[in-house]
């Protein structure tokens, strides 16, 4: 286990271990996990290994900035309610630490790359502390090969009037388990934008939670592509804790094969959070009759002067659009790819990092080509 010099951190970890022992892994009887059965993760019982992280090591930072880490680590992500957070807090060995001092604009995006170790469980723990008036873009990428379990927790603390754009790229192997919690705390007038892109993993669960203070803007965008027997569950929670904050949420999913996905979008508008403006949209493109999507908005509005809207759609490829493209000479497979791509692009285009956009466009085309070859090979 990671050496912790500070007694407070040791105490947090000890308590988390106790909580996990009390909570155990959730079951589908638990409302929050109704459509996601994590029994295979418990059953696999991979031995724990330190995650392989490129640069920005939390372990190294623990020596250099113990006070800063002690001030924030474990103070936002809730291990009382989420067993996986407790498991991470109790067992993390390393992760990324990004600290942007106040009034600093970082031009180049910060890339954090995690590569999984086969047949192991890793609990990457990330802490991102952005000072007041600063601006930064961060890309967190997860990939690997073979069977393994990644259980990541990222805490993002955003100072007043700061601007943070965060991309989570989940490209895990199709045999892996991936669970991640991103807990965001926004100080007043700050702006947080999340892009949650899930392409890989056999069993994936993301929890993205943001707490908004007065005058904040929070954007949660997501894209999930499932095929084969993949299952991807996205739970988001926006906590409008103070007045005059706006949130925008767009999650889009493309389901193929015998895959399944879950979208659960919680919006809590607290009693004092007047003038809240919240908009949530979830759109799903279902390509196979064997795939299943469960989508659920969960709005809890305690203030009376607010604007909150939500909507969800589930549909197939538009036959009229398919014929229109084919009648112009574009082949069936090409027309299908083009429509799927157009559907996904809506999310990709919102990412403010050109390199990530280009990367995703290529990844998307490769993924489409791959599934097409599978279909062709099977027929």
């Amino acid at each position, binding site marked *: 286990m990671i050496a912790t010099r500070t007694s407070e951190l040791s105490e947090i970890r000890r308590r988390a271990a106790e909580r996990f022992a009390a909570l155990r892994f959730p079951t589908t009887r638990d409302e929050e996990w109704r459509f996601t059965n994590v029994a295979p993760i418990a059953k696999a019982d991979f031995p724990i290994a330190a995650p392989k992280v490129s640069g920005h090591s939390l372990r190294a930072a623990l020596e250099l900035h113990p006070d800063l880490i002690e001030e924030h680590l474990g103070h936002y992500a809730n291990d009382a309610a989420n067993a996986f957070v407790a498991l991470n807090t109790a067992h993390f060995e390393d992760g990324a630490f990004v600290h942007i001092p106040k009034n600093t604009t970082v031009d180049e995006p910060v890339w954090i790359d995690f590569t999984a170790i086969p047949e192991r469980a890793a609990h990457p723990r990330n802490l991102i502390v952005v000072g007041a008036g600063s601006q930064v873009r961060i890309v967190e990428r997860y990939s690997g090969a073979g069977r393994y379990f990644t259980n990541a927790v990222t805490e993002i603390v955003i100072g007043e009037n700061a601007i943070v754009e965060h991309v989570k790229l989940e490209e895990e192997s199709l045999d892996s388990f991936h669970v991640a919690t991103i807990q965001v705390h926004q100080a007043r007038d700050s702006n947080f934008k999340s892009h949650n892109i899930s392409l890989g993993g056999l069993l994936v669960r993301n929890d993205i939670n943001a707490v908004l203070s007065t005058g904040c803007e929070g954007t949660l965008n997501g894209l999930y592509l499932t095929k084969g027997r993949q299952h991807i569950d996205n739970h988001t929670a926006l906590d409008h804790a103070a007045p005059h904050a706006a949130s925008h949420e767009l999650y889009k999913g493309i389901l193929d094969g015998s895959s399944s996905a879950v979208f659960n979008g919680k919006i809590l508008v607290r009693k004092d959070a007047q003038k809240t403006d919240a908009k949530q949209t979830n759109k799903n493109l279902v390509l196979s009759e064997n795939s299943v999507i469960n989508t659920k908005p969960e709005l809890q509005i305690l203030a009376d002067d607010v604007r909150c809207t939500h909507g969800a759609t589930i549909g197939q490829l538009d036959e009229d659009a398919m*014929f229109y493209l084919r009648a*112009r000479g574009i082949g069936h497979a090409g027309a299908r790819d083009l429509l799927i791509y*157009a559907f996904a692009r809506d999310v990709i285009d919102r990412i403010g990092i050109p390199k990530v956009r280009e990367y995703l466009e290529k990844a998307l085309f490769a993924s489409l080509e791959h599934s097409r070859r599978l279909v062709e090979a099977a027929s």
Partner: protein
Amino acid sequence: MGKPILKIKNLHAKVGDKEILRGIDLTVNAGEVHAIMGPNGSGKSTLAQVIAGRDLYTVTDGEVIYEGQDLLALAPEERAQQGIFLAFQYPVEIPGVSNLYFLKAALNAARKRRGEPELDAMEFLSLVRQTITMMEMEESLLNRAVNAGFSGGEKKRNEIFQMAVLEPRLALLDETDSGLDIDALKIVANGVNALRSPDRSTLVITHYQRLLNHIVPDYVHVLAEGRIVRSGDKSLALALEESGYVGLEELAETVQ
């Protein structure tokens, strides 16, 4: 007279259990413009969609020969690549796909089929610039999503723009004139007329005679209840304008 491009013999087609085409015979030779007129529900659009390959319709009898081959055996994209173009009555909006990308993909599919090199975005742009001007369209329209948020007139103009770029051997215009004001109608007609040549043919489907003042047809056919009940030259269109489509249903019963 040019050699036949399209030969339709005794074509029957239905949608669901409903028979819509009930024995169409029509030959279109190279260089000719044929107008097909008729009341709503007579099967005009169905004929166009069947030729383009829409699988919503089932052909139950008859044959369609295009340039000597069995057209009905081809997929819609193969028909398009071999020079058939349908200007849609209701062009489809495709958010997320730019006009430029879409039309370049369409043109390159046809070029690839002909064994010609594919064009890149710059070559494509320089090729289409003149056509954009002819259609009196803004170049910025190329970067917009296909038909998304276009007005009715812009959509129809976009169809003819695509046609002008793809240079089909057989163009099918499905009520391209409906809902157009006179200025837009002239632009559309100019686009169609610019393509007229001895080796190209056009099938103009319309409900109104007005378009035929601007695109003068060689032949006019009247469709009623799934059959061609009368054929003639352009004067037939004018006669129809006078008398309307009244009485055509009775005529359809007598044509066997």
